[in-house]
């Protein structure tokens, strides 16, 4: 039974992905799409790529799903120990460096790109990009994943220093939806997480409510219509 590689459901689970992290005046916003693929099959069309490490630090995961989940589990565990030993919430810099140490020292075996974002009382909102080899780069905004290739030019033009929360959120949603439009490995819904001194807010933008781009057609008879039939909350975890 020769099976096509397209339907090989035992292929390693990878997240095609578009992930974004931007800072604004007051905090950070992390955004991601929701598609996880094995070969050419979408294994999970509503995955959550923005994972919590502590109350004030979240990460966006891309690359191999297994590797990024394991790294985030280990870093959450180390950060928890660190918080107990330190006696106060961990800083974003520490979280990012823990991710970097794991990524760099195991670079031969891991295949994962991570964006760490959070807010602490010393530095405020910070974004750290940790791509494949284990480099750590503190940036005002970071993009990652296969869909990010289509966003470099967009951010060069659209990024501004000192945006408000709503401007930054709109920028993130627009960017992810642009990447979804052009990248086959990104899709589904757009999830955003806003972190500032007040706390953390999660937002969800279903696929049929995103702005339409060049040659895109409006969605009708969307599967998301069936959700309204039973309950307003799309997916309760």
């Amino acid at each position: 039974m020769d099976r096509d590689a397209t339907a090989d459901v035992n292929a390693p689970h990878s997240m095609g992905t578009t992930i974004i992290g931007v800072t604004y005046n007051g905090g950070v916003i992390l955004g991601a799409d929701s598609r996880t693929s094995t070969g050419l099959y979408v294994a999970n069309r509503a995955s959550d790529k923005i994972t919590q490490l502590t109350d004030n630090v979240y990460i966006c995961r891309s690359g191999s799903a297994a590797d990024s989940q394991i790294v985030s589990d280990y870093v959450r565990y180390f950060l928890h120990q660190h918080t107990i030993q330190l006696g106060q919430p961990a800083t974003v810099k520490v979280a990012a460096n823990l991710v970097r140490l794991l990524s760099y020292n195991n670079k031969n075996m891991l295949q994962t790109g991570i964006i760490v974002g959070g807010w602490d009382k010393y530095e405020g909102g910070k974004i750290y990009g940790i791509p494949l080899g284990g480099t750590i780069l503190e940036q005002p905004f970071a993009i990652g994943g296969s869909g990010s290739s289509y966003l470099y030019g967009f951010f060069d033009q659209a990024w501004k220093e000192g945006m408000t929360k709503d401007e930054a959120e709109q920028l993130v949603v627009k960017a992810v939806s642009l990447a979804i439009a052009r990248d086959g490995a990104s899709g589904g819904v757009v999830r955003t997480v806003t972190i500032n001194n007040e706390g953390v807010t999660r937002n969800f933008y279903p696929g049929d409510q995103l702005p339409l781009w060049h040659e895109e057609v409006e969605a009708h008879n969307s599967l998301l219509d069936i959700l309204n039939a039973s309950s307003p909350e799309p997916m309760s975890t």
Partner: protein
Amino acid sequence: MQMTTIIQMSKQTVNTSKLENPHSVLQPKISLLFYHFSDLKFLPIVSPLHKLYLKMSNEAMDVPKTGFSFDLCRRNEMLTKKGLKSPGYLKTGTTIVGLIFENGVILGADTRATEGPIVADKNCEKIHYMAPNIYCCGAGTAADTEAVTDNISSQLKLHRYHTGRESRVVTALTLLKSHLFRYQGHVSAALVLGGVDVTGPHLHTIYPHGSTDTLPFATMGSGSLAAMAIFESEYREGLTRDEGVNLVTKAICSGIFNDLGSGSNVDVCVIEKGKKEYLRNHLTPNPRTYISSKGYTFSKKTEVLLTKITPLKELVDVVPVGGDAMEE
């Protein structure tokens, strides 16, 4: 001479691979190539190789090596490249599904186990017991799914004794994903884990490399696309038990009839708070239809030409000696 060469080669391969990295947390440790020397114990004691075997065994026995030894994987790859046909293994072609309904979780599976193009088992059980409130469907290599679910089921039982509480689905999930990640995808088990615990109903999928997803409905295996098509068109939140069982049966049937790797019957398992129902062979849409009720008649039997009985020769005479009777 040949033996000596083998030892030297093995020693070389151990030394050239960079293993020790004090900073790394995730690196698996690699054990010595100890198994090559198991033949040497049959050599006469005079042989110098025997001394070497003893020396190596003393060193190796002191510190038990942890972690999976990947060295045979390299050798196997090399052999297959040279043209050796590796033995086939029993796969469960499979359609496995799970969904969350209003009161809990329903798991479903087909019952065909394949070995290449042959159906090895027409009615195997793919829904494995993990805990009284947690069940796990397994797709992939049958031995791997069986072994990994049995292993984690035992660990969960020990954990229950240790904590005095009902097992949670996330515990099973973490144990399974850590195990599968440690083996880097070589344990070919794709699982759908479902159960109800104090925190509510949960459904997860676990992939051979160790990644997990949490979903309201999930399908895995070669028939997953066929079953997912059914779920995507008809799943909604708040299904009743009967609707859920019907939907699961429909999805498995879709896999059975449209996927070559899945077939035979439908198994269903319904888990609710405090109770579970394992519906083995809930639906049997593929009965054997060609058995004649009268039985087969063969017109001509094999002819008997000669009947001769030759008793076996006795080599030993048993002489009862007066002594103590055997005591228990």
